[in-house]
C-alpha cells in the first residue's frame, strides 16, 4: 500500500516537473524577445546617459536638463498630455455611456467604428488631419468657397491642431476600458437607487459614475502616459511650433548627435511615467483596476 502511495507521489512530482518545463518552454521566446528588444536597449541607453562626450562617467547630461529649453519641453509635454487626457474624458465618457446603453448588437457595430482608427497607421491619420486643417485644406477651402471667411484660417501647425490629432488617436484607449466597465455595471443598481428615492440624474451621479471610475482611471492612465511619449502627431500638426519631449529627443540626436543627452531625456521621461503609475497605484490601486 505505502509502496503504491510512494509511487503515486513520484508520478505526481514528475507531472509537476513536466508542467513547469512546459510553462518555461512556452514563455521563454516571449521573455527572450522582451529582454533583447526592450531591456537591452533600455539598459544600453540609460548607461549612455551617464557618459559625457569623451566617454567619461559624468552627470553632465542630467545637469543640462535643468536648462530652460528642456524644462519648457517637460512642462509643455505634461500640459499637452493633460489637455489631451481631459478632452478624451470629456468626449469619451458620454460616448462610452451611450454605447453601454445600446443593445449588444448595435453596440458591437458602433465599437468597431470607434476602433476603426486603430486599423490605419498613426502617420496616415495625422496626414489626414493635415489634409483637413492646412491652409488650403478641406475645411478652409469649403469655408472660403461658401464665403464664410475671406482669408484661410490658421488651423494646422499650432498647438490646437496637435491636440486635436492626439485626442483623435487616443480616444479609443479611453473608451474601450471605460465601456467594458460600464457594461459590467448591474442595471439593477441604478434602478435600486431610483426605487429608493433618487431621481434618475441623482442615481447616475451617485451610483453609476462612482461605479464607472475604475474604467475611467484605467483609460486616463493609458491616455496620459501614452501622450507623454507622442512624437509624430505633434511634430507634423504642430509644424515646429510645438516641442514635446519626444521631439526634443529626436532633435538632440539628429541635430546635435548627442546620444548621451537624448538618453538622459528618455530616462527622465521613463522615470516620470513610472512614478506617475506608482502614485496612481498608491492612490487608486491600479492592480484592482485592470483585473476586475
Amino acid at each position, binding site marked *: 500500500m505505502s509502496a503504491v502511495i510512494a509511487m503515486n507521489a513520484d508520478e505526481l512530482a514528475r507531472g509537476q516537473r513536466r508542467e513547469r518545463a512546459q510553462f518555461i518552454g512556452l514563455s521563454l521566446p516571449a521573455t527572450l524577445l522582451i529582454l533583447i528588444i526592450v531591456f537591452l536597449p533600455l539598459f544600453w541607453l540609460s548607461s549612455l546617459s551617464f557618459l559625457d562626450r569623451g566617454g567619461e562617467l559624468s552627470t553632465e547630461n542630467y545637469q543640462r536638463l535643468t536648462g530652460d529649453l528642456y524644462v519648457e519641453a517637460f512642462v509643455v509635454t505634461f500640459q499637452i498630455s493633460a489637455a489631451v487626457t481631459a478632452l478624451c474624458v470629456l468626449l469619451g465618457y458620454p460616448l462610452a455611456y451611450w454605447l453601454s446603453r445600446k443593445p449588444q448588437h448595435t453596440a458591437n457595430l458602433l465599437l468597431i467604428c470607434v476602433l476603426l482608427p486603430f486599423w490605419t497607421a498613426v502617420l496616415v491619420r495625422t496626414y489626414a488631419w493635415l489634409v483637413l486643417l492646412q491652409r488650403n485644406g478641406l475645411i478652409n477651402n469649403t469655408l472660403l468657397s461658401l464665403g464664410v471667411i475671406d482669408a484661410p484660417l490658421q488651423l494646422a501647425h499650432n498647438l490646437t491642431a496637435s491636440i486635436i490629432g492626439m485626442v483623435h488617436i487616443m480616444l479609443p484607449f479611453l473608451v474601450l476600458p471605460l465601456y467594458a466597465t460600464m457594461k459590467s455595471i*448591474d442595471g*439593477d*443598481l441604478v*434602478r*435600486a*437607487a*431610483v*426605487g*429608493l*428615492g*433618487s*431621481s*434618475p440624474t*441623482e*442615481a447616475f451621479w451617485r*451610483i453609476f459614475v*462612482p*461605479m464607472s471610475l475604475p474604467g475611467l482611471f484605467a483609460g486616463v492612465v493609458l491616455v496620459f502616459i501614452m501622450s507623454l511619449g507622442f512624437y509624430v502627431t505633434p511634430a507634423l500638426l504642430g509644424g515646429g511650433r510645438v516641442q514635446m519631449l519626444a521631439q526634443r529627443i529626436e532633435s538632440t540626436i539628429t541635430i546635435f548627435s548627442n546620444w548621451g543627452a537624448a538618453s538622459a531625456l528618455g530616462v527622465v521621461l521613463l522615470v516620470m511615467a513610472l512614478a506617475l503609475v506608482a502614485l496612481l497605484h498608491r492612490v487608486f490601486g491600479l492592480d484592482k483596476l485592470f483585473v476586475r
Partner: protein
Amino acid sequence: MAAAAASSQSLPITVSNLVKAYGDLRVLDDVSIAIRPGEFMTLLGPSGSGKTTLLMALAGFVSPESGSIRFGEQEMITTSPHKRGVGMVFQSYALFPFMSVVENVAYPLKIRGVSPAEQKSRAEAALEMVKLGGYGGRRINQLSGGQKQRVALARAMVFEPRIILMDEPLSALDKKLREHMQIELKQLHQKLDATIVYVTHDQREALTMSDRIAVINKGRIAQLDEPKALYRRPNSLFVADFIGETVLLPVQREGDGVSLQGRKLKLATPTPSGNGPLQLVIRPELLQLDAGDDGDTNTIAGVVRQTIYQGDSVLLIIDAGDGREVSVRIATSRAGQASLPDSGSRIALGLHRDDTVVLAEQAP
C-alpha cells in the same frame, strides 16, 4: 424607530385592468388585484408568467399600456418611480458595492435629506432589526449571501415605506437558509407596518409566508386566496397542479354528480358545470389507508405496486385500474405503527368528502 413607524400607515394597493404588452405578447393581461393594507401578498407563478413585470409596474419601472394602480386613494400609474416611495428588494440584492453596509442602508435617508446623525442611528436600528447589528462597517463583498439579503431588506425598510416590494429575494440562497429567512421575513412583517408584495415561483415559500397568494398564469390571475383555501380548494387544474403535490384521476359525470370506479363521489364543492371531462384532484397525504366507511368518506380501490421510503414519509404507489397510478403519502411516524400493505395486495383508500375536489379539464 417604533414611534416613527406608528405614524406611517400601511396602504392598500388597488390594481385594476392592468395591461402590459411586449409586441404581440400580453405579459399582463387585464390584471386586477386588491391588496389589503398591511397584507403579505405573494405573486406566485411559473417562469415567464409576468410576476416580475407586475411588480415592476407597481414600482414604476415598467409602464403599462392601460389600467390603473392606486396606492391608497392616490393614482400612481404616471408617477415616476423615485416618487412612489416604495421599498424594493431585488433578486440580485442590488447593494452598492463601493459603499459600506451602513452607507447602503442609510442611502434612502441621505437622499431624503435626513441629518447624518439620524441617518446613522436609523440605519443601525434597521440593521439591528435584521439581526445585523455591528456589521455596519463591513464592505459588501465581505458578506455572505444571507447577510447581503438582510442588508437589502434593511435598506428597503429603513425609510419606513408603506409598501415594500420583493422580487424573489431568497432564490439565491441555499435551501436551509432560505427556509430560515422565510420565517424571519414573516416575523419581520408582523413588526413592520407595511404592505408587502412578494414574488416567488416556489409554491412552498408562498404557502409558508403569505397572508394571501395570487397565482399568476400567462399574465392573468388564476386564483387569489389564502394559502389554506388555495391548497384545499384550487379552482382550476393549473392551480391544483402548481400548488403542492397533486395526483389527478379522471372521473365520469353521472347525472348532476360524479362517479369513480362506478361509485358515486361525495364532493366538497359543486360539480363543475358543462359537459367537458373532469378530474379528481388528490393530495397524496390526504388519502387514508385504513378507511372506515363512515358515510362521509369516498373509497378508491387499487393494488399496491411499490413502497418508497423517503425519510420523513413513505410513498405508496397504487394502481387504481386502467393503468392509473395514485400515490399515497404516509408520515413515517404513522407508518411505523400500522403495518404497511405488501406489494400486490388489494387495498381501499379513503378520501374524506371535504378533501374531494373535482375540476373540469378545461376552464369554463
